[in-house]
């Protein structure tokens, strides 16, 4: 018989029983007379499964370590006594395994009989009917009778816990296989579930006999996924029944970009199940992508185009063509009157690459200027600038999986367990395996201390002092001789290095000299730098706590300097990794959303680049950069900017200094908003184009690892057109023809014009599953790790990173610093998550402050407090928390009426204008009612909702 070697890659619907072994050493054995060759460390269960022999199993699953509790997977092995469990038995060379004979069959039936005698046999009405592993195994082992009877002691009356809004826990169906407990530990890393009691008394419970909602559970769904029975089951399946077909697509929430199987019944979405074949998430998910998709069919969806002449008028529903023509004639009129540069647009980091590409194309080719920007302006624009300046490419360097090879991990200004949960779980897994953790954050985030994890160093710095901190770390590396000289010599530019070395060695950057600035004891900084530099592989992960500062770009360059000086670039386990906020922030930057760059970060002033675009687009392009979002607002207030096309962004809520933004929006003569809801920005709009959710269109998203993932249409667009079709309609009405019949054609054009995308097409994506750009002749399957042999600019450049204190300083009037962030259950401005059951976890934004600051002001938990800055004031409830440091207060910005941005100022990053959300000087005082702004907000909101209702009423007359 021939030797067979099987690689499981590619078969993602099958459960192989135990995880794939990473070993490269191969072992040959015989199973039921067939020879099989598998990597060392593979279980007998998995080896059999690889050649198509499915040994019955209950407690094993290939995303969990084998546990060996059910024994139903027993086999016989020549020369061994008894019947070992195949899931916990690793293969050995020359082993001869028998998986099925009379003895084994009897043994398995006996085990099944025991399980079934304590299981309610209501299969016909059970929600798992047809998709239950217990049922399958009963069938597989040929169970025909249950001799023990059903009237012995049993758990059939055990209660159901329905506290979680998305899944229920029916304890009567539990077979105590502990898959859920292990999933919560190994996959999610939350340790919310335990098995209490022993033997017959043993049962699963969240925490110490709590309900799911009261426990530490974060509702990731890993346990639901792992459960072989209907014990843990999605409520949507209980209500609607088992799905009948599925489509693989990509989550539209955060920059992790998890792949899901959208499981459907007709065009109704029953549930989202994380897809094992998704390389970003490898079968895991978080509460948002897994469960919070109800917004897509929420009653608030606006599904008809609407127009009006002024924002003090009710909306009028019109046909798509009327809306396009209305918008086009207004925009053209504005350009005639105020000049070509008086209009512009904003692309979305929530829409697909193809849609973003079309919007910037419409602006550059249709409007004839470069007034295009994207909300990445307000989050990761410094990443693009800083990484391009130092390493030559505007993107992170690794795959997520790379973290599993890191020995030390530094997390700066990021809160992955809340904002990038699936990556957070992977990171925690590596930390539990022993990698060292350094956290630099003004707050004590969950990561600093959580079950089985304790940060080696938490550098609790003052907001706004990042650059002083990173310089101090680099100073230690250089002056203590911890550099990787070989890397520096061969991979970086000598001159820039010598300059930087001279700069950073200066004693003014030493931890001792800067501890006054950062508030971090010098010894802690020294220790952190040594841990980072000494590790074989050290990786840096950072988030908006790095970019959203007046020196955001400087900080990104400082991070790059540190990684380059220690040689932590260009292989697995290292790197500089921005954790991107929204699903397609990377993509929207790649697709040429910025006013100075055409797709692929090609500067508009380069005549060769322009010529290529001009020949394909058939127009002449402007050689000067256009306006950035804050420039557009200022120009609007000055009266020189009058028309705007905003796709899928809510700038009225997400941008800083709300009063300023609102005044700018009010001054526009034509604001076209395209969104799935009448968002805050749409309340200032004249044309509303109903958007389509990610379920209603084809396209691609690019995640924080540069991974291009397919988004696949699972239902028709509620409003009739997908977003890319609406943009085409507007372009055509403006007289710039666009005719694509499918987003794949748009991708083909992108590939033609963008050197890092030349190898990307929908066919290739279907073939490979996903592609990490650059993907071209030099890297036909994409580039998981960047800068392996050289940098796009040849040698990397060190940057001089002088610390310049922000102008936003606390003073007598505003003695506290406000910093902002996010939490797990809500997403960004909350337009989607607020319209789901995720509200159960977070239905308002809260101000957190340190007990000392609270005491000073007579504030206790739950009090209403006014937060005022030099630009505005808002009122929130307070929470006293020692996660904060004295002098620093914190809030999230998921709810529009919280008005967190009413207080943030228009200070911004010097290089990119990314707003300084993370530092605002404020005062906090106890009050009894809401702020003026909130009252006005409520009135305006009510008025605009009436205008929307009017439009709907019209329809029925």
């Amino acid at each position: 018989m021939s030797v067979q070697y099987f690689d499981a890659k590619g078969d993602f619907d099958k459960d192989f029983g135990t995880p794939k072994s990473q070993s490269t050493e191969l072992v040959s054995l015989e199973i039921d007379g067939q020879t099989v060759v598998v990597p060392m460390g593979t279980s007998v269960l998995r080896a059999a499964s690889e050649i198509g022999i499915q040994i019955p199993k209950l407690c094993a699953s290939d995303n969990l370590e084998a546990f060996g509790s059910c024994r139903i997977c027993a086999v016989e092995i020549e020369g061994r006594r008894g019947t070992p469990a195949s899931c916990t038995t690793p293969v050995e060379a020359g082993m001869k395994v028998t998986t099925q004979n009379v003895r084994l069959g009897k043994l398995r039936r006996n085990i099944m009989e025991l399980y079934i005698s304590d299981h309610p046999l209501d299969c016909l009405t059970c929600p798992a009917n047809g998709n239950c592993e217990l049922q399958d195994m009963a069938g597989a082992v040929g169970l025909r009778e249950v001799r023990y009877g059903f009237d012995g002691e049993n758990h059939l009356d055990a209660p159901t816990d329905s506290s979680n809004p998305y899944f229920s826990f029916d304890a009567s169906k539990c077979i105590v296989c502990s898959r859920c407990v292990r999933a919560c530990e190994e996959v999610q890393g939350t340790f919310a579930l335990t098995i209490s009691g022993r033997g017959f008394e043993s049962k699963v419970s969240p925490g110490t006999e709590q309900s799911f909602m009261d426990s530490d559970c974060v509702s990731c769904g890993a346990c639901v996924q792992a459960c072989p029975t209907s014990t843990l089951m999605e409520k949507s399946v209980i209500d609607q029944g088992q799905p009948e077909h599925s489509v693989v697509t990509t989550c539209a929430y955060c920059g992790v970009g998890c792949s899901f199987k959208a499981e459907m019944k007709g065009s109704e979405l029953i549930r989202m199940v994380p897809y094992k074949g998704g390389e970003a998430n490898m079968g895991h998910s978080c509460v948002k992508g897994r469960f919070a998709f109800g917004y897509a069919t929420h009653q608030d969806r606006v599904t008809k185009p609407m127009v009006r002449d002024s924002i003090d008028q009710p909306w009028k529903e019109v046909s798509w063509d009327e809306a396009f023509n209305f918008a086009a004639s207004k925009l053209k009129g504005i350009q005639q009157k105020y000049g070509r540069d008086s209009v512009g647009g904003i692309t979305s980091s929530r829409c697909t690459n193809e849609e973003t590409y079309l919007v910037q194309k419409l602006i550059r080719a249709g409007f004839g200027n470069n007034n295009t920007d994207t909300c990445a302006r307000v989050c990761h624009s410094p990443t693009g600038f800083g990484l391009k300046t130092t390493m030559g490419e505007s993107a992170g360097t690794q795959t997520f999986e790379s973290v599993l090879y890191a020995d030390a991990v530094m997390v700066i200004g990021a809160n992955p367990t809340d904002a990038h949960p699936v990556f957070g779980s992977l990171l925690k897994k590596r930390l539990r395996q022993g990698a060292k953790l350094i956290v630099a954050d003004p707050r004590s985030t969950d990561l600093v201390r959580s079950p089985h994890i304790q940060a080696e160093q938490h550098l609790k710095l003052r907001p706004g002092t990042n650059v002083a901190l990173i310089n101090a770390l680099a100073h230690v590396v250089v002056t203590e001789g911890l550099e990787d000289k070989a890397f520096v010599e061969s991979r970086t530019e000598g001159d820039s290095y010598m300059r930087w070395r001279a700069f950073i060695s200066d004693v003014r950057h030493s931890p001792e000299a800067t501890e006054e600035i950062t508030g971090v004891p010098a010894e802690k900084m020294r220790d952190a730098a040594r841990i980072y530099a000494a590790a074989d592989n050290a990786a840096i992960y950072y988030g908006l706590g790095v970019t959203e500062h007046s020196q955001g770009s400087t900080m990104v360059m400082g991070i790059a300097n540190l990684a380059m000086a220690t040689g932590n670039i260009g292989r697995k386990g290292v790197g500089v990794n921005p954790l991107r906020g929204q699903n397609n922030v990377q993509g929207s930057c790649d697709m040429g959303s910025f006013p100075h760059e055409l797709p692929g970060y090609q500067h508009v002033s380069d005549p060769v680049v322009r010529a290529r675009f001009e020949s394909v687009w058939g127009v002449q392009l402007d050689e000067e950069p256009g306006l950035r979002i804050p420039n557009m607002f200022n120009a609007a207030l000055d009266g020189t900017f009058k028309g705007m096309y905003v796709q899928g962004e809510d700038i009225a809520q997400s941008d800083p200094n709300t009063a300023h933004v609102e005044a700018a929006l009010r001054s526009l003569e034509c604001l076209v908003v395209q969104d799935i809801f009448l968002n805050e920005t749409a309340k200032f709009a004249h044309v509303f184009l109903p958007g389509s959710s990610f379920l209603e269109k084809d396209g691609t998203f690019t995640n924080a690892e540069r991974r291009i993932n397919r988004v696949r249409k699972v239902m028709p667009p509620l409003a009739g057109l997908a977003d890319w079709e609406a943009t085409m309609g507007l372009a055509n009405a403006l007289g710039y023809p666009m005719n694509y019949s499918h987003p794949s054609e748009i991708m083909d054009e992108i590939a033609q014009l963008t050197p890092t995308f030349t190898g990307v097409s929908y066919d290739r994506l279907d073939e490979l599953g996903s592609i990490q750009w650059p993907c071209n002749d030099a890297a036909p399957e994409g580039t998981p790790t960047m800068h392996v042999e050289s940098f796009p600019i040849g040698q990397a450049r060190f940057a001089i990173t002088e610390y310049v204190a922000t102008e936003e300083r606390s003073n007598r009037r505003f003695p506290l610093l406000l910093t902002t962030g996010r939490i797990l259950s809500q997403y960004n401005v909350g337009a989607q998550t607020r319209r789901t059951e995720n509200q159960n976890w977070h239905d308002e934004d809260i101000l957190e402050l340190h007990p000392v600051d609270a005491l000073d002001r007579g504030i206790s938990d739950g009090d209403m407090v006014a937060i005022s800055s030099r630009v505005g004031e808002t009122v929130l409830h307070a929470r006293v928390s020692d996660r904060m440091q004295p002098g620093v207060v914190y809030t999230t910005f998921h709810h529009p009426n919280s008005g967190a941005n009413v207080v943030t100022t228009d200070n911004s990053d010097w290089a990119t204008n990314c707003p300084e959300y993370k530092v605002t000087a404020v005062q906090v005082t106890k009050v009894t009612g809401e702020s003026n702004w909130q009252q006005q907000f409520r009135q305006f909101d009510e008025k605009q909702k009436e205008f929307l209702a009017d439009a709907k009423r019209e329809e029925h007359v």
Partner: protein
Amino acid sequence: MESHQLTSMISMANQIAANLPHDQSQDECDKAVASHLQRFWSRGMKEQIRAHLAAGGEGLSEGAKRALALI
């Protein structure tokens, strides 16, 4: 009338001049600031701030003034 754009450009130009590296000669430093403005600011913004410089450049730092003279 007060121009929002101009007010913000003045502080941006000063900020850029303050942040670009100072370990090089003044000439090089000014060139770096000028090139940054050249690459990232719109035509209209450059025109407006040059006009402001010509009118005395109130509010601009010395570094920002020198750089703006180069564009």
